[in-house]
């Protein structure tokens, strides 16, 4: 029985490994085709590790650790390394592809040689329910061609037009079911779109709309297409077949007669992104503002929420005080709600035109005779609002940990101080508070580190805004480093500057490292952990 179950477990182990290896083997050629070297090396490392660990019995403990380790290496450690690599490239909109991919995109481009325009014929323009355009070209009774009209980008992926004699009954055009025929006026209204489209007849021949006629059928023309660019591998140049010009490589683009040809490709650029961050005035300025504010935001968030949390726990730390339990459960509530919900709700409350905060403050504005505060719309109001909301989010945590710490301070110490004639305040600042800080300070540093990268709150409450005017990149007064990075890479509206964003991430990494080092030094946590092992 035991032997059977052992044999079974061995068999199932080999089956699982076989499936795993099949996946690895399937991935390798694909990774090679797409030139994803990093991905390829990751796959190979994982593949080798898994096989070594599970085929042999030499690494027993690794059998337990490896599954979790694979995910940690792949999606935490590896991205950190990859991030460093990206920060030394020009990876950004217009330079997303590898050189080979860019060349293949360029070689798909076509043009129409001038001397090959000729033959004219009747053309009908149709549209289907999805508003896609279809052409019917009536060349002669043997060539009534029908098919989707596509733009140049789709020419190589679309199917050729088909001969459909059934579209003409007794020489009269009849509209096929499910299609709508565009009138002359509608064709004129759509003419810019239609000019770009063509009906693909075969590899080199297309039919295009030539003259729109308001009454009766419009006129089409046959054109032949030629490849616009040819890549000359030997000299590493692109040849423009329309103008016969030679386009050399300038850094990360081909350049024809002084014009950069899109798309370019990604290349290694050394420290250029870092140079930009530190020397380009219109990036360095905003980066300074953002870095300074990141520290201010994290520090003030901790101070405010700690102050409120401590105040409340001290107040409630009194024997015989009624409603303690109710107070405690209410104070936890803001912490129990996901931050992405709280940010949304506060954004509503703070709305300067309709929000409840301004209608509350309405009388005050009248007494002081000032304009209502444009919450989140000006630098000062946005920064105050972000701190206010973060205090609301953060004080319950501080309340919980300070309550715990207060209760663990021996009562005798306070009593003894009282006997010695200390007032309540004196014994608090001289005895309670210092003792409290011993156990709380590592948590405060942890909270600082958390808020240092509190993307959710900043991005969802203020969006980093209001914008800093005059910056080369999209950035605002409440942006912290991580939300600044996000705008650079994803949502800034000025393209995806992955390379530059990665170099900002490296700065964040360095700062987090410094914060953690301080925290470890300060609390000797590392020794404690080491002792624990």
């Amino acid at each position, binding site marked *: 029985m035991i032997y059977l179950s052992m044999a079974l477990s061995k068999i199932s182990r080999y089956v699982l490994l076989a499936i795993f290896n099949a996946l690895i083997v399937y991935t390798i050629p694909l*990774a090679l085709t*797409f030139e994803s070297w990093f*991905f390829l090396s990751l796959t190979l490392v994982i593949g080798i590790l898994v096989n070594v660990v599970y085929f042999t019995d030499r690494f027993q403990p690794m059998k337990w650790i490896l599954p979790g380790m694979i995910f940690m290496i792949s999606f935490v450690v590896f991205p950190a390394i990859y991030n460093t690599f990206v920060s030394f490239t020009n990876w950004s909109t217009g330079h997303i592809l590898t050189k080979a991919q860019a060349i293949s995109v360029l070689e798909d481009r076509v043009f129409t040689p001038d001397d090959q325009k000729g033959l004219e014929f009747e053309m009908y323009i149709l549209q289907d329910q999805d508003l896609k355009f279809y052409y019917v070209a009536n060349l002669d009774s043997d060539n009534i061609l029908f098919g989707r009209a596509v733009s140049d980008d789709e020419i190589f992926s679309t199917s050729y037009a088909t001969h459909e004699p059934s579209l003409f009954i007794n020489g009269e055009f009849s509209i096929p079911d499910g299609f709508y025929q565009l009138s002359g006026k509608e064709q004129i209204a759509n003419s810019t779109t239609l000019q770009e489209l063509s009906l693909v007849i075969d590899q080199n021949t297309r039919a295009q709309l030539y003259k729109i006629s308001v009454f009766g059928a419009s006129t089409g023309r046959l054109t032949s297409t030629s490849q616009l660019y040819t890549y000359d591998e030997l000299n590493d140049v692109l040849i423009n077949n329309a103008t016969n010009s030679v386009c050399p490589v300038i850094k990360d683009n081909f350049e024809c007669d002084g014009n950069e040809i899109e798309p370019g490709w990604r290349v290694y650029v050394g420290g250029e992104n870092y140079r930009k961050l530190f020397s380009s005035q219109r990036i360095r300025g905003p980066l300074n503002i953002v870095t300074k504010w990141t520290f201010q935001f994290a520090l003030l968030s901790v101070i405010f929420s700690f102050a409120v949390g401590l105040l*409340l726990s001290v107040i409630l730390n009194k024997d015989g005080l009624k409603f303690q339990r109710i107070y405690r459960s209410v104070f936890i509530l803001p912490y129990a709600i996901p931050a992405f919900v709280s940010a949304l709700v506060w954004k509503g409350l703070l709305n300067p035109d309709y929000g409840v905060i301004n209608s509350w403050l309405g009388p005050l504005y009248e007494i002081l005779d000032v304009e209502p505060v444009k919450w989140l719309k000006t630098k000062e109001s946005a920064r105050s609002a972000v701190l206010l909301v973060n205090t609301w989010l953060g004080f319950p945590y501080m309340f919980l940990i300070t309550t715990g710490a207060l209760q663990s301070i021996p009562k005798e110490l306070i009593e003894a101080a009282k006997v010695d004639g200390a007032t309540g305040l004196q014994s608090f600042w001289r005895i309670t508070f210092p003792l409290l800080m011993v156990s709380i300070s590592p948590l405060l540093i*942890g909270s600082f580190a958390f808020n240092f990268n509190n993307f959710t709150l900043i991005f969802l409450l203020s969006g980093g805004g209001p914008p800093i005017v005059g910056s080369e990149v999209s950035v605002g007064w409440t942006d912290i480093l991580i939300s600044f990075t996000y705008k650079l890479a994803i949502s800034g509206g000025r393209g995806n500057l992955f390379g530059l964003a990665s170099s900002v991430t490296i700065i964040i990494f360095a700062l987090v490292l410094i914060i953690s080092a301080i925290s470890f030094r300060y609390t000797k946590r590392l020794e404690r952990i080491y002792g624990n092992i």
Partner: protein
Amino acid sequence: METFKFFNWVKEYGWRHFVALIFVTFAIYPILFVVTNSVADFANLTNSKLIPEGFTLKHFKLLSSDPLVPYFKWLYNTYKVALIAAIFNVFLGTLAAYAFSRLQFKGRRASLLTLVIVQMFPSFLAFVAIYLLFFQISDIAPFMGLGTHFGLILVYLGGSIGFNSWLIKGFMDTISPSLDEAAKVDGATEYQIFRRIIAPLSRPILVVIFVITFIGIYSDFILAAIFLKDKNLWTVAVGINTVFIDDFNADWGVIAASSVIAATPIAVLFIFFQKQITGGLTAGSVKG
């Protein structure tokens, strides 16, 4: 005498209640406001009040019927992704924790230290690299590339496994080694000791880790936002913060309703496990 007694009460207790009540208002006002507004009959933010005049469920109905806001689809996606990721996270974390707690091997200390150091850097910091990595995976294996829940789950799995195995290991260390030594004498294999003794005894910490991980993933915005582009695949965090940005005034009732639905289960879960969660959080730091 009576006034003196009252004065004394104010000095001892009264002011405490006064300050506490101010902060009770601060803490609870936004929450009450959004709860009452989710069932209030007025149409927009302008005339919203804390105590509404009419009662209606129309905002909730609107959420379930508006094809442009597939709210319950988002909710389903969120629960699906968070549940799967949290389950695997705890499972893999437990396996690793067992080895760290019970097996002796070379490099054990070094790997534990590595875990602590790696966990200092939240995984979303390298989101640019994660984005570009999965951008390339999309070419090779589209089923786990950008825009898929599968890929997102993989990233979440990596994100907190180190932290989790560390906490679980700490708990397992408190289980007396005499138990597994006795089992070993009886001829139990490593796997049997894990399955029959250590894992069942670790259940309390596993539940807590599961809840912490689940809440963490449920509340994530940044990774879900870069991963999911298709509206039907969004999580709640991405959905409600992407759709409701233009017109807060008119959408206020629906915003309130969707906030209530998104927050209530998490708040209940959190309050239920509050003691253990804060205990766990003081050891590392996930939230706060």
